[in-house]
């Protein structure tokens, strides 16, 4: 294995190709254009197909057709584009089609801006679109992890027959880091043949109908319960998170994800040198969310700090995890502004000396 210096967007594209994805449908939007650009160049080299769709709406429905044919397929977009795909994502979940969707988040709402943000957390984990469904959501903090998660995402999507969302921010897409791709990588799940795919009715399989319509409410209720069972299994089996310095005594526990967690890890090292012990839980899967891991790690801290690039979205899951047991403090920047390690250090010092106010909901 050799390491190669790659831009995050290109690493995401190459990871998909390595995972056997030979189909990409997408529409231009900043700051993720390097992904479709890379795929338009790379896919013809492996006999694959790239289509620049007329809109995100069309792109996500092209994914539907391709996934329904049993092929691995991906799209990427950024926040407003994901909003346009929302209806299609609901249909994909309803028809139980495996696809991988990459959201390189930019700041909103509306047209917002093109700089990094984490303001789509609610959209990714709670309210992507209409109907009772969940996406499996994975949030990388480095280019290498983005490449690894994209490859895993295809296996997870196929295994659960559900869309998987890679939730990155502009930093993940734009920064260059060394990446390596494992040769002869083993799938993270044992995968069954896709005998449900609509590839022609020859009589070898039951007739395939890719569909999310159930006009009989009793049938739809059963379908909803089957989906719920699947999401429960995902919650049980697919938790991913990383802990930092939880093996020592600590006063403050940080909860942060994505590139923000990386900023926090720098601050944690700096504070350790100053004699202030801080630990961190970094959720990697945002659905399922590591509630228990956060609760257990927080039990040993005096207080908890949530850091994110939104006005307060993931913090709601931290509150659910802690159930009021520990005071929660909040540090954020929005609109495309980033949190610096120094800001984290100052905030933690304020928490330690009692001048930071905890988040209180009336």
């Amino acid at each position, binding site marked *: 294995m050799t390491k190669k210096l790659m831009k995050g967007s290109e690493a995401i594209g190459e990871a998909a190709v390595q995972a056997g994805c030979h189909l990409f449908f997408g529409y231009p939007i900043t700051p993720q254009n390097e992904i479709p650009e890379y795929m338009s160049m790379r896919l013809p080299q492996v006999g694959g197909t790239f289509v620049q769709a007329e809109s995100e*709406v069309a792109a996500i429905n092209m994914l539907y057709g*391709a996934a*329904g044919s049993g092929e691995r397929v991906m799209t990427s977009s950024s926040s407003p584009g994901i909003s346009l795909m929302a209806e299609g994502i609901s249909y994909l979940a309803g028809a139980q089609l495996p696809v991988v969707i990459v959201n390189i988040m930019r700041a909103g709402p509306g047209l917002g801006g093109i700089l990094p943000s984490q303001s789509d957390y609610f959209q990714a984990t709670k309210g992507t679109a209409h109907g009772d469904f969940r996406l499996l959501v994975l949030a990388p903090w480095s280019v290498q992890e983005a490449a690894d998660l994209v490859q895993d995402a295809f296996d997870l999507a196929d295994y659960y027959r559900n869309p998987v969302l890679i939730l990155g921010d502009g930093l993940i897409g734009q920064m260059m880091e060394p990446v390596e791709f494992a040769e002869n990588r083993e799938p993270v799940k044992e995968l069954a043949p896709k005998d449900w795919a*609509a590839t022609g009715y020859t009589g070898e399989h039951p007739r395939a109908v890719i569909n999310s319509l159930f006009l009989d409410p009793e049938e739809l209720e059963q379908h909803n319960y089957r989906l719920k069972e699947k999401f429960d299994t995902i919650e049980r089996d697919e938790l991913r998170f990383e802990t930092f310095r939880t093996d020592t005594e600590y006063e403050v526990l940080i909860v942060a994800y994505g590139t923000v967690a990386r900023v926090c890890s720098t601050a944690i090292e700096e504070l350790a040198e100053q004699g202030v012990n801080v630990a961190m839980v970094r959720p990697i899967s945002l659905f399922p969310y590591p509630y228990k891991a956060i609760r257990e790690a927080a039990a040993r801290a005096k207080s908890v700090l949530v850091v994110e690039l939104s006005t307060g979205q993931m913090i709601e899951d931290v509150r659910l995890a802690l159930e009021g047991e520990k005071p929660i403090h909040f540090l954020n920047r929005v609109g495309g502004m980033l949190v610096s390690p120094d800001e984290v250090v100052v905030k933690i010092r304020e928490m330690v000396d009692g001048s930071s106010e905890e988040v209180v909901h009336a």
Partner: protein
Amino acid sequence: MLETVFSKPEALRDVTTHYCPGCTHGTIHRLIAEVIDELGVRERTVGIAPVGCAVLAYEYFETDFQEASHGRAPAVATGIKRARPDLVVFAYQGDGDLASIGMAEIVHCANRGEKVTVVFVNNAIYGMTGGQMAPTTMPGQVATTCQLGRDVDLAGYPIRVAELLSTLRTPAFVARSSVHNPLMSVNTKEMLRRAFTYQVAGTCFSLVEILSTCPTNWGVPPGEATQWLEKNMLPYYPLGVFKTPESG
């Protein structure tokens, strides 16, 4: 020895449809099924059902199917055909689905020259949702959302989809036919056969617009629906072949 001269096509399932009395969806389904049978492609055909009256088309054809969201059948068709070029892919769409919410998808699917076939059923009204005005509703025609009749000053004129798509430079087969009488139904089958044949040969995108009836939402007795079509729709929607790949 007796010879069977007429039977249900293999590509149709032996079920009762939900279509209203006097509706011509059933006729169009049968013509498509006959063409699929005659071309011998049933086992590698994937149909795409729309949102609209034909939403349950997947219950009626003996082929694999995908159910698309409203208007997006040409995008779904693109995804299938790009994933599996060996499959024969047809999308079945109504006028609200194709000419209103799905106008971008049909134009770009045709313009990319996707090697798929679109059957466009134009009955000048929204059927499934209960008779609202469609982009193809005739001037002055009463619908539940234009109860005094379509006012062209406010809603514009009905869109002629076959003519519109035939302006594209990309090679395609685009035709309009009708099923209001047996003779025209035979012609429609011939148009469908040409459309599917171009796809099977990998030649080009193909679309057949088919004028169809909706007595329920037109507010006419089932027995008079074909006359209504002939009187009100035919003068505005001329039948014929608008574009062939040979004509460029």
